[in-house]
């Protein structure tokens, strides 16, 4: 991006220069580097307060034409990326040579904080910033994916490779067990709707509506000091997204086009037809009455059983079902933006059309987005503006990972059955329903219309005081239409078709008013005070109707159904009111102090505990401003900082404190039934967080580093506590328990080469140890084998520990253990029920992060980015079907050929026994190390040199190639180690695979044009 700015400013100014001025006097000179006296090309020379400017040429020379007044009184500003800006009065000189110092204060960037912004150097909290250059051009479905691995301590995991699906983001670990663990997202100051609105169990991701190319920066508030101003919504971190705005100057147009294609990032090895028959014949024999293939199982002969379950098995078919799950695909993305303005009004208008095809058959995501960001300075005191974004997305979705109809489940079908019958239609003679029937026989389309915007007034009644009033709205309309034709009746039970239609509208209105006072009271003392209030009201309306029995498959709307078999309409709301204040005080620009406090009220809590108070404080000490450090030449910047404070979490249901009855019906009469037991004392979940950090710059900031340690204690968890079902309830939301996250974060940025060849490296590393310290003795079950239990990280896998295979008889063995935990003294057992469950694994990574290298040389730019995750386990819930030594007729993974066959065989795969349940229970047999290192992105771009651009009258031309997920290094033998199957993904069910679609490996080529 820096490179782009360099070119764009150069080009604009060149255009200006060519227009020329009459009666001009010329100022010329050479701009060189103070460091090495080399001439500096591309430095902007601008007459202050005007649009008049030029750029230096390759020899560092410039000429600028000024009128006589300007020649006498004007001031020239010399600026360039990476250099300290200089302002020099012309004073009638026609020759001005300038030496620019290298900018040692790269930390001097401004970053966005809640309700304001701050110079990074003075920030005493912990905030990770990701800029547009990290996001642009990465061919992802949703913006979080572009941030993956780029912000220390922020763990981002996509559930699976379907488009528009849920993404789990954990800022410094999971801070809650039952309430949401997703951060609060704030776009241009307005909290936006991010909750899952899916009709099925697989979450959708409302953030996928946002055009990543509109984003200027993403600032992630991680510690309490930064996040406490968001009070009860701050525990999971706050993601502040700032969109691009215009700047004054001639209107710049940017056009981009990109085309891409994707493949699955990984595939699994499955048995082919011969191998399948070999294994299953053996499995039959082992389970049959006489131990041979001539015996019977449940009275069935081999042929009888096979004919029943896998008709066609003896026809010599050899189908690679996995291939049929994927589609050839091409995606297109077209972006257009215009930005500019004058001194009083600036604007940026942008539009995007993106049409993504997924790797899985029938999976697409289309986005049309238009945005206008407008700022107008009405007079000295009043500034107004608006950001407005209109979006339509259309997502052709798939069934959840646990459905036969989801394409990846095709792999369960035996290779000895054929996919299509003689007529070319998907075969119905398959052991499980053939998911290919869904390809033509069903549709699932989710359309979202979204209006996201805000309008503000800034009023400056006296110097240094700005009062801002702001109203924001995020109105999300979602329409989900599903149709199941007669050809998929074996899935749906609707012989003559079924359809349903669900409409959801989420109206999310925020109004806020706050005042900001910034003043350098004396040279030594400066203050920055912010105080205000905000309210948020969110209402969700849903309407649903379903019907069955259509005249034929051409009718797909519920209106044509003979029978309406379901319908509902619901409405629910919640609200927040916040009163917040923050004060920053700095002494001598060296001693920094910050306190903040927020009082939050929410409709979600009962009368007894409706308001919560969330204070925080932090301090920083810029040692490099002290004489005893200033003298150390190598150290260009050094700051110590510490923070402590409280944040909350209220992301639970809307009325969890009440004892409630809901309506039901029986036999045409309406009824009432308890839905929830009361807990009138329910209150906020509170997180105390301590953070200490060092910011360091060395060798004129050629090396910068940030090191942080944090300790995050969450108490009064809003826990859905399992209760004895004999009460009539299964769980209750209570303030019970505590958990803790500890971590260490390290960010290192080095500029290895500066000059013609630029090479910089960024490295980030974040550890997090999560431990549930108190659940009041409860155990909370997730899906498959996940659970939350005291003394363990959230979501540990709790199951029997597989002990391999008895070499004597091929039985699967399990460690007996004790009810209290691992205890190998009792040996092993072949009885599944006789073995105790123990903690077998942990889905939370020990550490994760990313390494990026950016090179630029001449017109080329190259970016290579690796992302890594280490120390997490994956539980493959599908293993009991996929790798079950031929227990049932599912095709088996190739490793099942290593089954035990005769006494003395040493293997991990038990004897194949059809319907024998030998080793097929949930156990550590299906657990794997989920660590991975991934070549996340590689981008190679080339920008046309200036002389060619001049001839073409273009400001910028860049062509590029980007590869996403090109290489993945992992021990996991599933499709992809970035996985959490969509239908069970939750706070507790983490790192679980179940026929989850792999991530895409994407190849994109694109062109950026600027004029």
């Amino acid at each position, binding site marked *: 991006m820096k490179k782009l700015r360099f070119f764009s400013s150069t080009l604009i100014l060149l255009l200006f220069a060519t227009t020329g001025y009459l009666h001009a006097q010329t100022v010329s000179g050479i701009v060189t580097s103070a460091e090495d006296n080399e001439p500096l090309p591309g430095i902007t020379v601008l007459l202050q307060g005007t649009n008049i400017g030029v750029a230096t040429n390759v020899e560092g020379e410039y000429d600028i034409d000024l009128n006589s007044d300007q020649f006498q009184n004007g001031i020239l500003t010399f600026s360039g990326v990476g250099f300290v800006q200089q302002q020099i009065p012309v004073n009638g000189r026609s020759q001005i040579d300038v030496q620019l110092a290298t900018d040692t204060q790269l930390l001097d960037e401004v970053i966005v904080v809640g309700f304001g912004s701050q110079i990074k150097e003075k920030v005493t909290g912990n905030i990770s910033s990701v800029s547009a250059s990290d996001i642009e051009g990465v061919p992802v479905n949703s913006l979080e994916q572009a941030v993956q691995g780029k912000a220390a301590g922020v763990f981002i995991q996509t559930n699976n490779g379907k488009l528009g699906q849920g993404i789990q983001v954990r800022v410094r670990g999971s801070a809650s067990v039952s309430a949401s663990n997703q951060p609060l997202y704030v776009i241009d100051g307005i909290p936006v709707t991010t909750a899952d609105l899916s009709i099925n169990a697989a979450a959708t991701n409302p953030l996928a509506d946002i055009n990543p190319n509109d984003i200027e920066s993403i600032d992630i508030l991680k510690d309490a000091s930064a996040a406490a101003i968001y009070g009860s919504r701050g525990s999971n971190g706050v993601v502040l997204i700032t969109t691009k705005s215009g700047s004054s100057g001639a209107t710049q147009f940017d056009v981009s086009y990109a085309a891409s294609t994707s493949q699955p990032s990984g595939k699994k090895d499955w048995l082919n037809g011969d191998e399948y028959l070999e294994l299953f014949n053996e499995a039959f024999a082992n389970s049959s009455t006489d131990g041979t293939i001539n015996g019977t199982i449940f009275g069935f002969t081999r042929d009888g059983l096979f004919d029943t379950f896998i008709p066609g098995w003896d026809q010599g078919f050899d189908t690679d079902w996995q291939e049929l799950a994927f589609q050839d695909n091409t995606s297109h993305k077209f972006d257009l933006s215009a930005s500019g303005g004058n001194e009083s009004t600036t604007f940026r208008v942008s539009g995007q059309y993106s049409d993504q095809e997924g790797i899985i058959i029938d999976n697409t995501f289309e986005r049309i987005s238009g945005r206008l960001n407008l700022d107008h300075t009405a007079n000295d005191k009043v500034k107004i503006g608006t950001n407005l974004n209109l979006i339509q997305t259309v997502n052709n979705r798939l069934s959840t990972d646990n459905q036969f109809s989801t394409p990846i489940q095709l792999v369960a079908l035996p290779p000895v059955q054929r996919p299509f019958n003689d007529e070319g239609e998907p075969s119905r003679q398959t052991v499980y329903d053939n998911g290919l029937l869904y390809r033509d026989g069903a549709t699932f389309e989710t359309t979202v219309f979204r209006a996201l915007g805000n309008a503000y007034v800034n009023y400056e009644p006296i110097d240094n005081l700005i009062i801002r009033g702001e109203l924001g709205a995020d109105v999300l309309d979602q329409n989900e239409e599903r149709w199941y034709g007669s050809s998929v009746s074996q899935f749906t039970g609707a012989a003559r078709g079924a359809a349903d239609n669900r409409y959801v509208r989420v109206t999310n209105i925020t109004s806020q008013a706050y005042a900001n006072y910034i003043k350098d009271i004396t040279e030594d003392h400066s203050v920055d005070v912010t105080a205000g209030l905000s309210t948020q009201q969110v209402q969700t309306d849903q309407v649903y109707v379903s019907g069955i029995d259509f005249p034929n498959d051409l009718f797909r709307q519920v209106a044509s159904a003979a029978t309406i078999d379901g319908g509902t309409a619901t409405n629910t709301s919640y609200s927040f009111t916040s009163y917040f204040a923050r004060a920053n005080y700095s002494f001598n620009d060296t001693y920094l102090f910050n306190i903040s406090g927020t009082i939050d009220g929410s409709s979600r809590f009962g009368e007894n505990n409706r308001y919560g108070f969330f204070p925080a404080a932090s301090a920083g000490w810029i040692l490099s401003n002290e004489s005893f450090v200033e003298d150390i030449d190598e150290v260009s910047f050094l700051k110590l900082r510490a923070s402590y404070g409280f944040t909350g979490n209220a992301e639970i249901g809307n009325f969890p404190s009440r004892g409630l009855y809901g309506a039901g019906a029986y036999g045409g009469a309406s*009824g009432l039934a308890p839905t929830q037991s009361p807990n009138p004392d329910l209150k906020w979940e509170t997180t105390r967080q301590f953070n200490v950090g060092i910011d360091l710059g060395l060798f004129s900031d050629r090396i910068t580093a940030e090191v942080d340690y944090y300790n995050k204690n969450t108490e009064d968890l809003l826990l859905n506590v399992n209760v004895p079902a004999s009460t009539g309830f299964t769980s209750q939301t209570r303030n019970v328990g505590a958990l803790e996250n500890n971590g260490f974060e390290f960010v290192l940025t080095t500029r290895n080469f500066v000059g013609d060849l630029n090479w910089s490296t960024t490295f980030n590393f974040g550890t997090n140890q999560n431990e549930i310290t108190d659940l009041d003795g*409860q*155990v909370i079950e997730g899906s498959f084998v996940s659970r939350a239990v005291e003394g363990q990280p959230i979501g540990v896998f709790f199951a029997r520990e597989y002990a391999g295979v008895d070499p004597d008889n091929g039985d699967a063995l399990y460690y007996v253990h004790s009810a209290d935990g691992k205890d190998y003294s009792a040996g092993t057992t072949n009885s599944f029920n006789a073995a105790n469950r123990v903690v077998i694994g942990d889905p939370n990574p020990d550490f994760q992060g990313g390494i990026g290298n950016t090179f630029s040389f001449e017109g080329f730019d190259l970016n290579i980015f690796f992302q890594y995750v280490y120390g997490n386990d994956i539980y493959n819930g599908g293993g009991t079907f996929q790798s079950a030594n031929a227990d049932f007729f599912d095709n088996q993974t190739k490793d099942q050929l290593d089954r035990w066959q005769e006494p003395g065989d040493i293997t991990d795969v038990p004897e194949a026994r059809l319907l024998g349940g030998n080793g097929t229970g949930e156990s550590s047999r299906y657990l794997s190390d989920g660590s991975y290192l991934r070549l996340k992105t590689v981008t190679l771009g080339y920008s046309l040199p200036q002389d060619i651009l001049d001839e073409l009258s273009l400001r910028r031309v860049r062509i590029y190639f980007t590869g996403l997920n090109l290489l993945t290094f992992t021990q996991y033998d599933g499709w992809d180690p970035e996985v959490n199957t969509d239908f069970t993904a939750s706070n507790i069910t983490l790192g679980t695979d179940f026929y989850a679609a792999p991530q895409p490996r994407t190849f994109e080529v694109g062109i950026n044009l600027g004029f």
Partner: protein
Amino acid sequence: MKAKESKIDLIFHTMKKLKSKFIHIFVLTVFITAGCDGLLDINPEQSIDEEIALSTSDNVEAVLVGAYNALSDDDLLGGQLLFEPDLLADNPVTNEVQWTGTFEEPEQIWRKDIQVENGQVAQTWIAAYNAINLTNNVLSALDVVDADIRDRVEGEALFIRGMIYFNLLKLYALPYSSGNINTNLGVPIITTPTSEISEANEVPRETVEAGYQQVLEDLQAAEGLLPQANGIYASAPVVAAILSRVHLQMGEYDLARQAADRVISSGNYALTPTYEEAFNRTSNSSEDIFSMQVSEQDGANSMNLFYATSEFGGRGDILVRPPHIALYEVGDDRLSLFYDDTTATGKWKNQFGNVGVVRLAEMYLTRAEANFREGAPFVGDDPINDLNAIRGRVNLPLYNAPTDFDLDDILLERKLELMFEGQLLHDLKRTQTDVGNISYNSGQITYPIPQRELDVNPNLEQNDYYEQ
């Protein structure tokens, strides 16, 4: 609350002290749009507070409807409580049926290899106690119920509660017929409604005997309170029908035949002219004593889901096998109900049909069996007549003399008549008939106490079989 308001006021006033009218404007803008205090007062729109739910007679009656609705849940009499015992009752040697579906839980049940985490075993438990809690809520609020309907409301609630405990005991505890009823554990007995939940809710299991006494107490009281007819809801004969099952299960044949006779002699019911007409009904047939009501919009029919083929809206997961078909005499009309090459039972072809709980044919068979066992003087009628009522309808030759049949014939008649209706397992257990090579009183054909329940209730004990 008061203290916090004053803090807010403080901020508000501090801001006021900044003496800028513009601050007032901005702050007021926000207050006007938000309405501040009122903003936080939001009520649910699809629920009401529990105090309201039990405050009036109409509301309590509505909670009673809620109890029926809970009873008809697919995890209870909507199907799971019927077809899963059928799977458990299937002889693992001869296999009259076969589970061919992909759901692991029913497969474990069919294989008699139930794991303690079996989700379905947990779901049935959860649904049962949910319904019990509803009845306890109704029973706790009888004083607000109008006097003229109070007995009926109480009777219906007692009936539902008693019937659910009966079903829980049959599945989660060793059978009554295996003796040791004062030491064998039944299920937790809860007779008060749940409000705030505490350790007091960690209720241990009572003995089998205590459980059956609770069932008898509830059902006998219910029969006395209820009218002779009550539409689709419980009436005195409905309760008597279930009581006849309880007595059979306890081996109390005299009480069983008397209860069955009360149903038959009520005159409320008549066998349908043909066997086929007794099934796939969208409203009760003349033969239905009690059934779970299902419509397109409401209710669940898991029997259809698992027994019917996809042509009839089911999954076709339970296959009927030749060894079962072979049990029927040639010419038995009941044979013609099978379809798909006699691999599917035709009793559950209507996706939105009612799920029958008890029908009159069973009462004839119960009375016949109990009279046969107890001997003369017969209650109601001679067993031969009762059996012929069943056989005649399906075009089987009638018995001419008491010597034409013995107890085994009666039990076989009962099995074939009531097959795929959830009764087989309990009949096998009460008659001490082994399930193939598995003893009738083996824990292997008893459900485990759900692991999730053991995890949250330290006072619960697991069944011995699952503790090995």
